[in-house]
């Protein structure tokens, strides 16, 4: 079965794909420099800070000396990333070889940021005004964000379980659903393999996917993607739970905020004269790099050695996700009880979900009570899931050609050797002089046999 994977591509890949001029323009904003710095791999971050106050170019050899021999692969990844994002610029000199230098705008912005700190372009609202409306404390803001996000996801997968519809326009929804749902005529839309994998990703990865789709679509709506990216990155530096005035925003930014409110990233509120927005936890997560693999939220799933799942959650979304690979038995007011069975797993595998995704979902969302146990999901369950998956992969297929009826043994032996040289010999039967050769070697084999005949 072909393995399809949607890679939750980091937002920064999108940024790196922008044309050089736009990227340089982006770097004029100090917060964007900060956000991009945070998204780099750890070694790259270190290089940037180390080169922060160095004006001249540093030779590649010197930089390689900073790393131990077994870190060279990471070093290469870091340097490639820095070059891709145009943070490092390369220069070639005949005497000293290649050398690297930090992008000057990036450098000066970061220097200023370190010594003077950063000031957001928008002021927080005085509490005298915000106090008139029911104030949203941290927990309430978080609950709001979660509710909106779940509602959005349920609507995305077209579930009938969604209680209320969000305000996102149908065309926008279709853009998000592109790639995740397929629609055949006269049938209700079904989730694709990518759709299933999307559901099992953690919230950060899902958020990035949606934002990426939103931005790639922005060009069609006449919104400059670079502006949008810089606004989103700036937003991620606002403090959660604090109200910020909307008077400094442009029209485009206001529209963006409305869309983001539907997704649960900000909450819009209106006072008597002014309106303001409150960023939620999802917004500040925008600048958390995807290299930070540990998701720091509370888990809710307990998996027991008898293959039963107990999920302490009231969310319909969680129920849908668990339904993907387990058989849900009871749904109690605060508990979902299910069991992992062979049928339910075969169902999941048919839909394109891999065993690794299921296991990593269970591990990442393990209830705090079992999370500290090593391993958080019992080994017999993980082993069995993998075994059931490999059950479906018992047969491996390679396209090949079958050769029969060789005139003499010598020709047969010569053909065998020839195939072996090219690494294409799959099977031979010397007694009956039969040969199976990989398809890519087939053409060469034909040439060879023709030459043999002459």
């Amino acid at each position, binding site marked *: 079965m072909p393995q399809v994977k949607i890679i939750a591509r980091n937002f920064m890949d999108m940024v790196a794909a922008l044309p050089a001029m736009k990227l340089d323009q982006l770097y004029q904003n100090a917060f964007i420099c*900060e956000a991009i*710095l*945070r998204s780099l791999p*750890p*070694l790259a*971050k*270190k290089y940037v*800070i*180390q080169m*922060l*106050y160095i004006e001249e170019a540093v030779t590649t050899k010197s930089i390689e*000396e*900073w*790393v*131990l021999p*077994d*870190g060279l692969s*990471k*070093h290469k990844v870091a340097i490639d990333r820095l070059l891709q994002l145009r943070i490092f610029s390369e220069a070639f000199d005949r005497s000293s070889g290649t050398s690297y230098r930090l992008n000057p705008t990036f450098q000066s912005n*970061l220097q200023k*940021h*370190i*010594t*003077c*700190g*950063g*000031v*957001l372009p928008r002021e927080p609202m005085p509490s005298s005004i915000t106090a008139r409306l029911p104030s949203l404390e941290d927990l309430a803001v978080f609950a709001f964000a979660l509710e909106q996000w779940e509602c959005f996801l349920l609507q995305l997968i077209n579930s009938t379980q969604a209680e209320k519809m969000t305000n996102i326009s149908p065309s926008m929804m279709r853009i998000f659903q592109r790639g995740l749902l397929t629609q055949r005529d006269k049938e209700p839309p079904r989730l694709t393999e990518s759709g299933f994998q999307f559901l099992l990703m953690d919230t950060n990865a899902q958020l990035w996917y949606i934002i990426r789709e939103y931005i790639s679509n922005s060009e069609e709506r006449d919104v400059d993607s670079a502006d949008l990216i810089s606004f989103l990155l700036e937003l991620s530096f606002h*403090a959660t739970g*604090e109200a910020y005035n909307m008077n400094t925003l442009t029209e485009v930014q206001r529209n963006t905020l409305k869309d983001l409110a539907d997704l649960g990233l900000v909450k819009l509120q209106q006072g008597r004269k002014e309106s303001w927005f409150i960023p939620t936890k999802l917004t*500040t997560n925008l*600048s*958390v*790099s995807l*290299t*930070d*693999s*540990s998701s*720091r939220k509370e888990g809710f799933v307990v998996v027991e050695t008898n293959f039963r799942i107990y999920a302490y959650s009231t969310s319909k979304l969680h129920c849908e996700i668990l339904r993907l690979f387990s058989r849900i038995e009871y749904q109690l007011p605060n508990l979902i009880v299910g069991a992992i069975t062979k049928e339910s797993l075969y169902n999941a595998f048919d839909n394109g979900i891999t065993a690794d995704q299921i296991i990593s979902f269970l591990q990442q969302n393990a209830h*705090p009570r079992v*999370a*500290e146990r090593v391993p958080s999901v019992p080994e017999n369950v993980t082993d069995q899931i993998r075994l059931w998956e490999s059950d479906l992969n018992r047969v491996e297929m390679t396209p090949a050609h079958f050769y029969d009826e060789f005139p003499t043994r010598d020709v047969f032996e010569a053909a065998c050797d020839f195939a072996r040289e090219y690494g294409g010999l799959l099977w031979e039967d010397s007694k009956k002089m039969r040969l199976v050769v990989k398809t890519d070697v087939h053409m060469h084999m034909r040439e060879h046999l023709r030459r043999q005949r002459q």
Partner: protein
Amino acid sequence: MASAPSKLYADDVSLLVVLLDANPFFWSASSLPFSKFISHVISFLNSVLLLNQLNQIVVIATGHNCCDYVYDSSSPASRSAGTGKLSALSVDLLEKLEEFVCRDEKLLKKEPEGSIASSLLSGSLSMALCYIQRVFRSGPRHPHPRILCLHGSQDGPEQYVAIMNAIFSAQRSMVPIDSCFIGAQNSAFLQQASYITGGVYLKPQLLEGTFQYLSTVFGTDLHSRGFLQLPKSVGVDFRASCFCHKKTIDMGYICSVCLSIFCKHHKKCSTCGSVFGQPHSEAASEPNKKRKAGDT
């Protein structure tokens, strides 16, 4: 003694506890003015906070008579935005540091004799380790802690026992202790600390470039350290100080029950109370007979 095994970390979130030497006797005689030093340190701390949203910094000031917390980035009282000329961290840190120095001065009882005016490193190390213990107990998801000593004052031999105890408990909890020593001669205590706990000891040669030293050597999180070339320790001074006079000694007498070190022969161990036998001459290598407390 082998250095500590270190935990394997998966991500690069770090909790940096900085022990800042605020000993007025040292700084009044130092070639680098305190104000310049603090500006380097603040830039360094800002750069650490910049690298990861979840990084945390705690600064403990080590004075002559007392130690106290002067900055905690995770406390709700710390500001979220700066004033434009100074970062949020600077404003908070400098305010608290001023208050601390005034308090420290008030506690001064008499001028120290001689030139050794040591700061209370043992106190601040213990405070750092207590804070880190609290972080460990806060749950399975916590940033990875390490201690950085920015120290310049000379070692006070009277603090030997307390500092060694702190070092061993750091080794047990697998918390590396890094030191950046800005004084004149090397500090034996800090060298031992870095060696035993698996941290890095550095004595920068050009003090005007302190920020560069800090960011190059001490800025990386524990996960990436496995891949970087860091300064190795050369010639650690393992000399101990005796428990009775607090002098640094090379050879001495050791109680076989509690391993306390004495420079002269005593009748009884002052730590555990064991009674010692007759001293043998130094030429003989027979072990002294020690009997448990209670026998005469």
